[in-house]
């Protein structure tokens, strides 16, 4: 549920084009992906969303975006995305230099919650929980690191809609500990393609000491819940 396509300005040695991303999904046995646009996050939200909405592949679920530095345009753009059937919103808090208290981010968090959209966001969960808390928001924090596990678990106890990506929960007991503390519905697997290597997170997740039901929930159940 954490896949992007486009270009990576700092990594032109990495092919991040849509065909390359589709090949990598296949190569790693990933059946479906929630897909966002790097163009939308790093350059221009509107044409990035255009590019995204133009994709058509049964494996892909589009994740729109708005620019946190131009939150005045967020409302019409969210309505346009909703009109195209998009239920998911990717925010690039870290990449766009938004801090948790910036009015633009707070505004977008409120708009997304009002519309019942699920937000997928980058950024340190210890700081970026704030604009989303207390709104019954559905939010997946993509960069939750093993080192920050305790902070996430404490948040998840109060926020039924807060989910962590399993990608960086990479200590020997992190995935298992989150599931034991707050349940598998607070966890979802995301590969971080094309910016991250896939096998590290995929191998760790495949070897996780979970029940088959928990494994299915993290592997696809949590993300499917955002789409229904």
């Amino acid at each position, binding site marked *: 549920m954490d896949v992007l396509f486009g270009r990576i*300005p*700092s990594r032109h040695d990495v092919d991040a084009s849509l065909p390359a991303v589709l090949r990598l999904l296949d190569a790693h046995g990933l059946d479906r992906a929630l897909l966002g646009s790097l163009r939308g996050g790093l*350059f221009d939200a509107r044409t990035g969303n255009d590019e995204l909405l133009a994709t058509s592949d049964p494996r892909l679920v589009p994740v729109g975006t708005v620019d946190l530095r131009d939150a005045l345009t967020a409302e019409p753009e969210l309505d346009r995305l909703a009109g195209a059937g998009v239920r998911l919103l990717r925010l690039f808090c870290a990449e766009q230099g938004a801090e948790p208290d910036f009015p633009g981010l707070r505004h977008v968090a409120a708009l997304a919650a009002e519309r019942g959209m699920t937000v997928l966001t980058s950024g340190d969960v210890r700081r970026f929980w704030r604009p989303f808390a207390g709104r019954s928001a559905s939010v997946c924090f993509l960069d939750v690191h093993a080192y920050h596990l305790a902070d996430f678990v404490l948040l998840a106890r109060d926020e039924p809609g807060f989910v962590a990506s399993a990608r960086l929960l990479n200590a020997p007991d992190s995935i298992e500990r989150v599931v034991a503390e707050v349940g598998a519905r607070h966890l979802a697997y995301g590969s971080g393609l094309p910016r991250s290597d896939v096998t590290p997170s995929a191998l760790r997740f495949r070897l996780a000491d979970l029940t088959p039901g928990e494994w299915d929930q993290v592997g696809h159940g949590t993300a499917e819940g955002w789409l229904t």
Partner: protein
Amino acid sequence: MIIDVHAHAGPWFFAMDVGDPGLGETLMRRYGIDAAIVSASEAVTYDAVSGNRWFADVLDRWPADGPRLYGYVTVNPTDLRAAEADLERYLPGGRFLGVKIHTTYPAQGLGSTAMRDALRLVAAAGVPALVHTWGADVWALVDVLAAEPSLRLVAGHMGGPAWREGVAAAARCDRLYLEPCCSITDRGKVRFALDRVPTGQLLFGTDATLIDPAVSLGVVADAGLDARERELMLWRNAAELFGIAVPRP
């Protein structure tokens, strides 16, 4: 006569609607800017190849009776193979006069290995480069210039908040030019530069259409240039550095 060596075209991700190349033409006419050397915002912030291509198309459609428009080939230091191809593609046409290199979006600082490799490529191409400088690491350019005796660099923003270091660095190498545009206009910084660096190394830039040209023109107005300084800084230095034809004196 005014030549703007630091201009942009295309949209930005801030709350401003400045993406239309026609706005650049409007601003040039409003402020009497006769020629501008422009890089595409897309090329700087996201995708050098597609941004350069987009701007080449802007150049093709530019009105023949409009102010003169030239381009920078934007180079991403993390992709020198694409940079080499773009330099070969665009420089020979005569509408692209130099190279633009940013540091933020490629995440490569002025002292990075990738930046040194990119500037070596620029030296080989034989054109000047406008480099985004924003901090005391502007000094790294002096090292690169020492290693590449044919290279000519323009310190865009003159070091930004570290403009005193930009000035000191330019005083050390006559192939380091200063372009002081900045949306924050610390008082007197252009005069500070003129008093310490040969006038032949000062250039004029606006950052338009991201920033209104009123800012840089206002800074120059407040610097109290004499006639010779005005001629050199506002256009003659740029014309010589980039090989832009100007009316005979």
